[in-house]
């Protein structure tokens, strides 16, 4: 079974790498950020699988931290970097 877990984890890592294309491509900042969000979910699944493959349950805590912090980065992006500013509205 351990081999199988590693295999699925490798597959997930490959989908993560494929998603990098969207980070480079954009076109809007939101698209890049979404790709990062997707990486977070994929990494959580990957970590859970590795935890099972190595028989190291404590790796799940790393996945938990990922799950908690994925939202922090995305919210920082929306509220700080990408918010609608008053001057933008005036310029439109």
């Amino acid at each position, binding site marked *: 079974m351990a081999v199988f877990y590693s295999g699925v984890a490798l597959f997930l890592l490959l989908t993560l790498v494929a*998603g990098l294309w969207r980070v480079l491509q954009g076109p809007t900042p939101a*698209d890049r950020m979404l790709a990062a*969000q997707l990486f977070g979910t994929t990494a*959580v*699944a990957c970590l859970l699988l590795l935890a099972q493959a190595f028989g190291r*349950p404590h790796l799940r805590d790393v996945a938990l931290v990922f*799950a908690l912090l994925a939202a922090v980065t995305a919210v920082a992006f929306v509220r700080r970097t990408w918010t609608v500013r008053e001057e933008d509205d005036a310029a439109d």
Partner: protein
Amino acid sequence: MQLTDFLTLLLLLAGAGFFLAGTVGLLRFPDVYTRLHALTKADNVGLGLVVAGLVLQAESWAAMGKLLLIWLLVLLASASVAHLVARTALQKGIRPWKR
């Protein structure tokens, strides 16, 4: 091979399929909103299936609970983030792609 192992195998494979679908959607869909659809649904279902597969192998009730907690957290985070991003995108004047 036991029945639980077989079920885990099936669930993990299905989960991996949904992750692939999420990435394909992210790469192929035409605008932010449709990509958000791919992200929030395909990925959460993918993670849900992976978690379900691993829950069958969990060594204790607490480990099972932790796996489910992780899934719930990701679910909540991605639903809120999807809503935030979609709302801001609309306020910024990004028009939804139309056929």
